[in-house]
């Protein structure tokens, strides 16, 4: 089965259980939105999928296209097709976007094969244009001194360049002005297709007007409490998270 699947996942950090029995499936080709109050564990889930070493998985399974992700190092997961756009992207001082992406793409090539420079730059410029980024950005160090919006755009640029099978976008919309939101949404939409599964973490229904999800999940206190079609997001906006909690199959800890 071509899907990113999480089954009964439990995650602890600093002796605190943050994710408590979460189950979720994102088939390749679909876009799933994940919403939930602050501190409910959305970013924790994203980082665990990507293999962040600080989080401890105490129980559960995470599979990507039938392969156990939990056994793999973060970079192996990435090279096999998992991408995460960070809520708070790190700076990489002195390393230009062009060099960074080049190294990232090179790491996916078989040993001994060299990335063709002209093709690479052609593609890079094409994607930058798609995202409304100035070419001069390629020579700036990754995220160094970037505005919040520029960082988010750079995350999507990397997504476009690395062509993953699954992408987890953690609040890529926050910090974007309305025009930038449209551009980034346009960028993500242009990547949509049968070969990409997306887990879109957001607080705002607004984004979902531009990137229309196939499914919407609501996460509260480390668990999915409701799942539905795109209308769920609207309903959630009207009724709030208390309503979502009430709908949970089992009582949810607050």
């Amino acid at each position, binding site marked *: 089965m071509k899907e990113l699947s999480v089954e009964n996942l439990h995650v602890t950090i600093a002796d605190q259980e943050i994710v408590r029995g979460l189950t979720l499936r994102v088939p390749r080709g679909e876009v799933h939105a994940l919403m939930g109050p602050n501190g409910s564990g959305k970013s924790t889930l994203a980082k665990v999928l*990507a*293999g*962040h*070493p*600080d989080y401890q998985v105490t129980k559960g399974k995470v599979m990507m296209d039938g392969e156990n992700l939990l056994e793999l*190092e*973060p*970079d192996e997961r*990435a*090279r096999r097709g998992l*991408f*995460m756009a*960070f809520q708070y*992207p*790190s*700076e*990489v*001082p*002195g*390393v230009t976007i062009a*060099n*960074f*992406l080049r*190294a*990232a*793409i090179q*790491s*996916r090539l078989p040993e001994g094969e060299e990335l063709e420079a002209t093709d690479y730059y052609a593609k890079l410029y094409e994607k930058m244009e798609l995202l409304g980024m100035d070419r001069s950005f390629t020579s700036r*160090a990754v995220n160094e001194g970037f505005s919040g919006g520029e960082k988010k755009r750079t995350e999507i640029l*990397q997504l476009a360049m*690395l062509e993953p099978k699954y992408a987890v976008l953690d609040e890529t919309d926050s910090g974007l002005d309305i025009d930038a939101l449209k551009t980034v949404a346009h960028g993500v939409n242009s990547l949509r297709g049968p070969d990409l599964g997306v887990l879109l973490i957001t607080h705002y229904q607004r984004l979902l007007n531009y990137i229309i999800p196939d499914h919407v999940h609501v996460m509260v206190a480390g668990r999915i409490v409701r799942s539905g079609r795109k209308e769920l997001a609207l309903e959630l906006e009207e009724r709030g998270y208390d309503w979502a909690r009430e709908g949970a199959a089992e009582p949810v800890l607050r």
Partner: protein
Amino acid sequence: MKTETSAVDINRNIGDFAYPEVHVRDAGAGLSEKTIHYISDVKEDPDWVREYRLRGLKTFLEKPLPTHWASKDLEAIDFDKIRYYLSPGTAAKRSWDEVPEDIKRTFERLGIPEQERKFLAGVEAQFDSEAVYSNIKKAVGEQGVIFVGSTEGLKNHPEIFRKWFGKVIPIGDNKFSALNSAVFSGGSFIYVPPGVKVKHPLQAYFRINAENFGQFERTLIIADEGSEVTYMEGCTAPKFNTTTLHSAVVELVALKGAKIQYITVQNWSANVFNLVTKRGLAHENAEVKWIDCNIGSRLTMKYPSVIMKGRKARGEVLSIALANDGQHQDTGAKMIHAADETTSNIISKSISIGKGRATYRGLVHVPKHLKNCKNNTECDALLINATSRTDTYPAITVRGTGNAVQHEASVSQVSAEQIFYMQQRGLTEAQAMSLSVNGFVNDLVRQFPMEYSVELKRLIELEMEGSVG
């Protein structure tokens, strides 16, 4: 294993091999007047050199180890166990074909003859104590440029050699310059006539092959008025369990309006004590620029200096030091302003990995009576692990009015979040580290000649691969 050959070979793996010794001349272990006479006899030194050596020995024995400010690790050097002179007993050859087979193979493995064909104006290859090969492109030689081993320079060009030898760095400058003065052998002698601009670099390659050995090359470069020259040195040694000592003295003289650029790539194995004295003298409007990269060794102590003696002279030190686990890079720069309107620039970047330790020592001296002198000093340290260490000791004495100094220092650390971010894009931990280190040195490396910066990046990658996981 890499198979391609490199411009300046600093690949640790490539350097780590040794052929059986082929030495005919061996001064034996330990240091005494007898050792000096042995060396002087073998080299057929003129009397003044023999006397100079004896004075060097005396000063060396009198001076204490500088452990009151430097590392106590110096005490681990057993001067009685070291062999001070080893050579095959033949003069340096002008053609690789004439170089003894084993030695030739060594340099072929290091890629030297190939680089010579590709982009160098001349090459000298030193094996233990003596140059085994030295050659200069015909066109360059015809301009009157001299590029030979120091032994040959002393023999064939005594008038220039004697005039400048020991004038920039006196015997008693420090304990190790005294040691070098006593037992020096090998190194380069270069003279560039007035107005001659040597387009391509001259390169020397210093190879230590023998165990329990000390290499004491002595380099003297004189750029006559208005001339220009770039010199590159590379060094390697195999990994022995015993101590190896490398203690060179390098003197540069840039006469009026001349420019000397001296580039070092040091890739010593982790058993080498690398204690080197380097100083340049810049006359009026002349420029001395040191590009100094220290990778490997157990302890490196090296502070390239420039004495700006003439009006408008310029001095520059650009340095990178990488201290891996168990290594101590104690490096820096000294800028002595001795005339009006002189300017100096120091940019030093150090990287400490694991328990590696990087120390920066700087000295900028501008006396009171001078006018319109400028210095800029920047030293940045990058710590890779929580156990890594860096120390900075800048000493700036600037007096008088109208002199300007600017000093900036920074310490940064590669954060775990940064590494995770990079890994999420597909880079292994080692690749992420080495890219971070490259990012740290990038703006400095951009000022280096091309062949050199490519190699430096590759070496950093190798070091990082070896130090992670």
